[in-house]
């Protein structure tokens, strides 16, 4: 026996499950703590004989399973109700019954996978291929059909001679002293195995590269990019004029556009009446559009004080008697049709927005030419006390 070697423990091998249970009981009752039993399969009653407490693995499962459920529900709530709410099949954004299947699946997935990972990594402290027990005769026999017990040298009561005697009294078929390996060997670092890993790494990374960066750009995978269809603004051989785009049939009305029949006429006021009530929202809309399209020339309060510094002729004020006597239809017509140097705004401002501007112009006109009764009315409405 080489005395330089450090002892890991002393192992005894037995032939029957009854003997190993008995041995485990004896070892436990003699006060040994750092020992282990190795059997080719779980032997019933061994936990009791070794005084092992019930496994706490279930707590890992409980916690991770509940987290799986919570993660799934919160994620679906966030995606379907917060980040991008979509009405699907008339269901509410948070459609709990429809979320149950995915919640269940993620619960199971997280619980099982993390239970197994926790068991292997935390409870077993595996992988551990350089444990002293590996590659011993002892390990080979308990891996097959023998039952073994090993008392480890880290135990407080460990003494080589005493433990050997103690184990001999239990009638084992064999006693083996197990040493720490002289130099640690790593079968994983065999050249053949390293080569295998390198080959796998090259194949996987190369395959991924080719797949994502090459395969997607060759036929037929790129067929989505090359399609037999007409693109806007492109030429086509299908039509005799060579244009890909077609002009609409005469008289076509685009969606949302109502044709204006009074273009070019001077005064169609008799037939145009304002279809919109001057509600707060409508006036707000008109105000916004007025500031965008009208105020550069007409001024912020329709006084005709252009911001354009003479680059374009100043329009007259809208607070003149003539301006105030225009019917709503007339103002609408002027915006739509244009007047003198003022161009038509029909293409920039929608129909509704034009009527909203008309309402806002009326607001400005009344504000600029307020009467005493207006002030009383305003004080009443806002609860303020403004005097003249």
């Amino acid at each position: 026996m080489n005395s330089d070697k450090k002892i890991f423990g002393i192992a005894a091998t037995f032939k029957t499950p009854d003997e190993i249970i008995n041995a485990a009981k004896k070892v436990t009752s003699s006060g040994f703590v750092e020992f282990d039993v190795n059997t080719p399969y779980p032997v019933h009653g061994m936990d009791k004989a070794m005084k092992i407490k019930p496994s706490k693995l279930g707590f890992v499962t409980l916690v991770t399973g509940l987290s799986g459920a919570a993660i799934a529900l919160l994620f679906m709530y966030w995606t379907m109700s917060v980040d991008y709410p979509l009405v699907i099949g008339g269901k509410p954004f948070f459609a709990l019954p429809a979320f149950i299947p995915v919640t269940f699946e993620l619960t199971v997935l997280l619980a099982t996978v993390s239970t197994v990972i926790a068991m292997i990594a935390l409870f077993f402290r595996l992988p551990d291929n350089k444990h002293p027990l590996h590659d011993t005769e002892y390990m080979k026999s308990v891996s097959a059909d023998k039952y073994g017990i090993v008392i480890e040298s880290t135990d407080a009561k460990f003494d080589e001679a005493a433990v050997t005697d103690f184990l001999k009294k239990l009638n084992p078929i064999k006693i083996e002293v197990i040493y720490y390996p002289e130099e640690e060997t790593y079968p994983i670092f065999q050249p053949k195995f390293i080569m295998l890993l390198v080959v796998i790494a090259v194949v996987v990374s190369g395959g991924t590269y080719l797949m994502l960066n090459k395969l997607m750009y060759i036929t037929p995978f790129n067929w989505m990019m090359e399609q037999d269809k007409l693109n806007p603004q492109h030429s086509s051989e299908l039509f005799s004029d060579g244009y890909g785009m077609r002009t609409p049939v005469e008289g076509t009305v685009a969606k949302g556009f109502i044709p204006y029949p009074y273009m070019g006429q001077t005064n169609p006021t008799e037939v145009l009446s304002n279809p919109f009530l001057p509600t707060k929202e409508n006036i707000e809309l008109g105000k916004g559009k007025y500031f965008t399209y009208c105020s550069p020339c007409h001024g912020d309060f329709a006084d005709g004080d252009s911001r354009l510094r003479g680059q374009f002729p100043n329009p007259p004020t809208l607070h003149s008697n003539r301006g105030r006597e225009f019917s709503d239809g007339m103002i609408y017509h002027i915006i739509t049709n244009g007047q003198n140097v003022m161009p038509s705004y029909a293409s920039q401002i929608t129909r509704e927005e034009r009527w909203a501007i008309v309402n806002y112009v009326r607001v400005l006109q009344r504000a600029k030419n307020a009467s005493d009764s207006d002030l009383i009315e305003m004080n009443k409405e806002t609860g303020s006390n403004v005097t003249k």
Partner: protein
Amino acid sequence: MNIDYSQEVPTVAGRLTPAQIEELVAKPMETKPNKKYFIALSISVSLLLIGATFLAFSLYYGTGLWGNNQPVGWAFPIVNFVFWVGIGHAGTLISAILFLLRQKWRTGIARFAEAMTIFAVMCAGIFPIIHTGRPWLAGYLTPYPNQHSLWVNFTSPLVWDVFAVSTYFTVSFVFWYVGLIPDFATLRDRTASKLKKTIYSVFSLGWRHSNRHWTHYEKSYILLAGFATPLVLSVHTIVSFDFAVSIIPGWHTTIFPPYFVAGAIFSGFAMVVTVLVFVRKIFDLQHIITLDHLEKMNKVILLTGMMVGYAYAMEFFIAWYSGVQAEQFVFINRAFGPYAWAYWIMVSCNVIFPQFFWFKKIRRSIPIMMVIVILVNVGMWFERFVIVVTSLSRDFLPSSWAYYKPTIVDFGILLGSFGLFFTLVILFTKSLPVVSISEVKASADGAQPTHHGGADHE
């Protein structure tokens, strides 16, 4: 090693010692494959290559090569998907549900059935992905932050399916691997080859058969079985939701989840019996996978076959009882319409032929059993065909009715999926222990302490 083959062994492993069990199970991995093995492998690889060729054509020219068209847009790919997922269910049932029910006879067949689950789910997974037409974009099925800032529709059964099937595959695989760890350790300590030893060492993770580990290990097995049991029921339930959540007459029924689960177990057991009959013969495992196992599985087939038959009858009853005209039409059309041939193949294979299993002699006769289980496999494939095709081909609008005909490419890909399945099974039988060594050792005679033995030993 001398094992007496002249007598049939009544229970798991019979009088075999642990060493003999190990020897038997490890033998296929330690001997060079013989001629029969290569013949079997070449047949299955040929099927696989036929399927791969047709699939390559489909990917190049597009899914127009298939028979799918309006109104039958689901057709073969979905039929095959449901068929293969169903096959997988037997494995989880044997490994998880029978484990929780303390059915010891499961130990001999659990490993193999679990492996078949994994392979069947692989085959199943192919079909919905190729059915999308652009399988290389399958990543869109997962919810990931993307440039469209869109998420998948979590209220859609098709998304539930993605989660159910991928979870099912992962959990089955993890369950299978946990069972394999002690066996890898045993193989590691048996082998003389250095390379094999390295590979087994890596996969065994340095397992030491320590009882301090077995405690947690057994706990984890119960936990995994406890999760796998509702999981396996949920998977085919969710597969049935693909149909039941729609409003197509013949699909929109509440009986679908239990009906699908029963059908899945039915077809799965039939497939397990089909394959095990060969495996036990080829690898001399008659003592571990006994005739009793096969008989018990045949009983399960008989039971689930009658459950499926009950569901067929109940569908008709509810169609009549509900008073919904469209529903009534669909079921009369199923039994007497243009697809009546498929319907009656389904009924005879799934309901009538399994009735022979009432006779003990037939349950224990391998040739007759083989014929019946293969008919069950055929019948269960036709069940999915009937559900998918008859309902779609004649729905609400008579003007869009059409008769669906699969093309040769459809059949080629179906054949290829069988090729893939059997290739994986054949490779598995030679590279991994087809029977759980540690579990069978634990349930052999004399493997557990006698409980008074410890006291007598003094």
